[in-house]
């Protein structure tokens, strides 16, 4: 009948293992007994002894009964396989393949040269002990690579393979009593052995020296709930590198490290002294220490080490070390041992420069800057402990730190802290962290409004200034925000802050006071009359300067220049109403000359005295129709043009019709087209008198204004 796997427990050296599979194979070696005359035979001759192998896969649970045989060439492995047993198994190969988040499975192959003893026994009591085992998962393992030549920093290992193999041959001598009952060889020859590890990582450089590169790969097995700790290690040379590019997959690099020597695993039994300072020698006693390949004090390599004997080495503790575990590799494996340190005090001798703004780089000098995890700017403010993106620091060496001024610094001492060493040092003087204005809003407005400033290091701000005029009140809302009231006066200029240390920092841009127009005086004006515009913040930097300190103003589209009036107060503009201006709004121009301020004033244009400058043509003939035009200013609302004789004997009142009024240009003023209207023929009689007449404009309130232009009627 067939039996199931549940019925046959596996024990190695008497210990249960969580075996996944086990295959036992053995064969004899028989040759047919042939002669030159006989080409076939039923007789066979044994030419070698029985050789068996056991392929065993099992879950790694710590205290591995087979792993120790990697390092030793003595001793046999006994195996019990559901009633069958071997007494003298030899480890031929041992391998582990590690993939993320999966259980650790060991694949081994044992050889034996003896008769398989016993018989299958289904009544074997299944092992209960294995219930206490814990399977180690690779997600709980740590895999470290130590590059002895310190070239590559390999991390992010996604797959790891470890394999040990060696040549095993039985050696028989003649006449040693070997027979069917005694198959044991005289001795076992253990030949070349090799440990090879390979790992897949994201390290894609082509760095690969001809002579290889010393690399130590150590896989530490740990279990989260138990104090289970074991390791496998390979201290050897990098022998190959493979970089794979393929679609639908990551680009990976496979590095292979080979070690061709094994020995008994190292052991540390004691250290001396038990407490010492970094930088001192530490003597480490133990076993199998002849071939140390690396010595680390926690995370730092020993500054140097000396193998004094197979049982004693001496290493110099690195100055930056902290208490922890000695981590020692030999060709035989990996071992850890705890040690304790006494730390020297941290001191700060200088800070250069002694002031700076956010994101500036400063240098801190002193002693024992090791394992520093905080550089504090101000008491209680963790400025640049490396936990923010804006503030950071770097340890240049044990005496120098380069730190970036954080956004939260104030005028205070700088402290350098090592949490791990429980030491700290304070600068001998205060560092002035300059406040810094990044932006402020609004950037324009009247005195009395609140402006919000954004920036850094506001905690120690002692004054807010607008164009160097102190703000009457301000509030530091937080280290990056201030609300300040705009003071009265000329506040056109930079916004600035004064800090506790007496520093003064300025914004990059101006604050622009708002120009406000409050009135036009007089509100009823005629052309050419003086006009005053009242308002706030009338000053050169805010108004469009036409040159000669005249500033552009628009009276309902009629643009003119005005000068500052009582300019100490910045409250007035003085000028004259342009002749072409019409009743409407007044605008004040911004410095670009195109846009205007939001406030406007209003005025009413009242008629002024018409001024005539030209009439074209300036003659006609008796009895003729006349078409021509008059030029001048203040011609709006003219109702008629009159020609007055020298003797005042006649007039041509209303005999000319103003047909059109249009602007010639800004300088010449307005032109009136005057034509005979149809009723003019009736007035021809008047026209029949030759003579020279003064041209007059007829306008409400300004009837019969004289001018210096004349019109001639000639005899036709």
């Amino acid at each position, binding site marked *: 009948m067939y039996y199931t*796997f*549940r*019925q*046959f*427990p*596996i024990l190695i050296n008497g210990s*249960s*293992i*969580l*075996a*996944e*599979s*086990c295959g036992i194979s053995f064969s004899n070696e028989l040759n047919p007994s042939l002669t030159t005359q006989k080409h076939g035979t039923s007789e066979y001759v044994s030419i070698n002894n029985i050789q068996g192998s056991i392929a065993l896969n099992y*879950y790694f649970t710590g205290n591995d009964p087979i792993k120790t045989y990697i390092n030793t060439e003595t001793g046999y492995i006994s195996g019990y396989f*559901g009633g069958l047993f071997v007494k003298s198994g030899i480890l031929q190969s041992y391998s582990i393949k*590690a993939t*993320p*988040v*999966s*259980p650790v499975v060991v694949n081994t192959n044992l050889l034996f040269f003896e008769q398989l003893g016993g018989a299958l026994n289904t009544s*074997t009591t*299944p*092992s209960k002990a*294995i*219930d206490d*085992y814990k*399977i180690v*998962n*690779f*997600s*709980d*393992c*740590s*895999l470290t690579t130590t590059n002895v030549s310190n070239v590559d920093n390999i*991390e*992010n*290992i*996604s*797959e*790891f393979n470890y394999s040990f193999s060696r040549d095993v041959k039985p050696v028989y001598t003649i006449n040693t009593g070997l027979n069917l009952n005694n198959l044991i060889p005289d001795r076992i020859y253990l030949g070349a052995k090799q440990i090879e590890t390979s790992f897949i990582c994201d390290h894609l450089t082509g760095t690969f020296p001809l002579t290889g590169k010393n690399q130590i790969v150590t*896989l530490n097995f740990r279990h989260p709930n138990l104090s289970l700790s074991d390791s496998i290690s390979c201290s050897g040379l990098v022998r190959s590198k493979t970089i794979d590019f393929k679609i*639908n*997959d*990551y680009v990976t690099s496979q590095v292979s490290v080979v070690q061709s020597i094994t020995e008994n695993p190292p052991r540390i039994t004691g250290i001396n002294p038990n407490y010492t300072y970094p930088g001192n020698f530490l003597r480490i006693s133990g076993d199998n220490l002849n071939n140390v390949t690396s010595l680390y004090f926690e995370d730092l390599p020993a500054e140097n080490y000396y193998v004094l004997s197979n049982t004693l080495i001496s290493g110099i503790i690195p100055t930056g070390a902290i208490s922890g575990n000695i981590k020692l590799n030999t060709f035989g494996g990996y071992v850890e041992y705890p040690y304790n340190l006494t730390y020297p005090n941290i001191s700060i001798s200088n800070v250069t420069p002694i002031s700076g703004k956010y994101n500036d780089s400063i240098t801190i000098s002193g002693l024992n800057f090791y394992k520093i995890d905080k550089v504090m700017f101000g008491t209680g403010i963790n400025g640049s402990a490396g936990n923010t993106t804006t503030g950071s620091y770097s340890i240049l060496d044990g005496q120098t730190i380069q730190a970036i001024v954080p956004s939260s610094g104030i005028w205070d001492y700088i402290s350098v802290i090592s949490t791990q060493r429980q030491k700290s040092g304070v600068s001998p003087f205060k560092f002035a962290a300059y406040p810094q204005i990044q932006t402020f809003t609004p950037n324009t407005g009247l005195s009395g409004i609140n402006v919000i400033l954004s920036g850094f290091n506001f905690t120690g701000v002692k004054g807010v200034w607008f164009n160097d005029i102190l703000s009457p009140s301000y509030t530091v809302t937080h280290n990056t925000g201030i609300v300040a009231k705009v003071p009265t006066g000329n506040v056109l200029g930079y916004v600035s802050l004064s800090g506790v240390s007496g520093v003064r920092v300025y914004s990059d841009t101006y604050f622009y006071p708002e120009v406000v127009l409050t009135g036009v005086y007089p509100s009823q004006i005629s052309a050419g009359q003086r006009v005053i515009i009242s308002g706030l913040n009338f000053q050169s930097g805010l108004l469009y300067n036409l040159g000669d300190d005249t500033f552009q103003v628009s009276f309902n589209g009629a643009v003119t220049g005005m000068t500052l009036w009582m300019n100490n107060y910045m409250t007035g503009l003085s000028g004259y109403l342009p002749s072409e201006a019409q009743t409407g709004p007044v605008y004040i121009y911004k410095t670009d000359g195109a846009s205007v301020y939001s406030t406007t004033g209003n005025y009413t244009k009242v008629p002024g005295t018409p001024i005539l400058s030209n009439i074209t043509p300036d003659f006609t003939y008796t009895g003729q129709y006349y078409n021509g035009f008059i030029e001048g200013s203040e011609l709006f609302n003219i109702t008629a043009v009159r020609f007055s004789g020298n003797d005042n004997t006649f007039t041509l009142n209303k005999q000319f019709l103003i047909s059109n009024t249009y602007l010639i240009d800004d300088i010449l003023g307005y032109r009136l087209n005057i034509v005979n209207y149809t009723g003019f023929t009736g007035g021809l009689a008047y026209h029949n008198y030759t003579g020279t007449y003064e041209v007059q404009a007829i306008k409400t309130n300004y009837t019969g204004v004289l001018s210096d232009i004349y019109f001639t009627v000639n005899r036709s």
Partner: protein
Amino acid sequence: MIYYDQCDVVLNGSGIMAESAEIGVSPSLAPIYSLGRRGVWNQTPTAPITSNISINYYLESFFDHNKNTIDFIKTGDVTTYAPCSTIIIGNVTGSGYLDSFSFTAQPNSPIMANASYTCFHELIGDLQQKNNRYGYNKTNSSGLAHGYTLHVTSSGNSQIIPTYSLNYSFSADWKPMYKIGDKNPIQINYLGANERFVLNRDVYTGLNLISGVSMTGYLNVTGDTNLDIISLNSVANTTNLSTMNFNLSGAKVSNNLISAQIDDFVRIQTTAINYI
């Protein structure tokens, strides 16, 4: 107990009108047997934990986060940034990578979409009833996608050769990278995606399948090459229309199926795939 109307379904901070939603967490545990032991020794993780999220929801043409994700995959810098969606179902929150997105449009019916995501990190939050933090149906149904307003291709020409149903599906491949000594991926990257258009029409044209035929050429589209889903309010000719576009260009016909059955016209189902 949380009844369905008290269960928020939120995608990237916006409530979506889901008819159903699922989150499944799947630790990869395998039984460990041992030679010589009667029962199973234990179960142990053999692969990283993953969660799958699936949501069935009313597609709104005025805005859809999944469509945004698809557009980003098509045109954005997906090499350096793998777009991840935050999905909340009853306060249980996952960061998911869009595995698939699909919808089927039928005449006279609102368009329901299905989106599924894979989360490579653990879910957070416990089941809680809604707290009215998220709004739903912001356009008061006027922005819904509907068979009335889906046009193949540009809206003015979609009835020249009518389409009787349409299925759009998108799928993407993501690859997490794990390292020894960590349960969570150290990075997640986009590998590839494809989108598939399945159209049901009543005209058949021969295909030279060996060299491939572009979908836009095969459909003999008039107008642009977009498949437009206009918001439902377009039937009332109102303003504030929104349109969701799926571009057919680049897709090649992969299958043409003529099917005939009683009480129906002969349908030609054309499938085209666009690899992104």
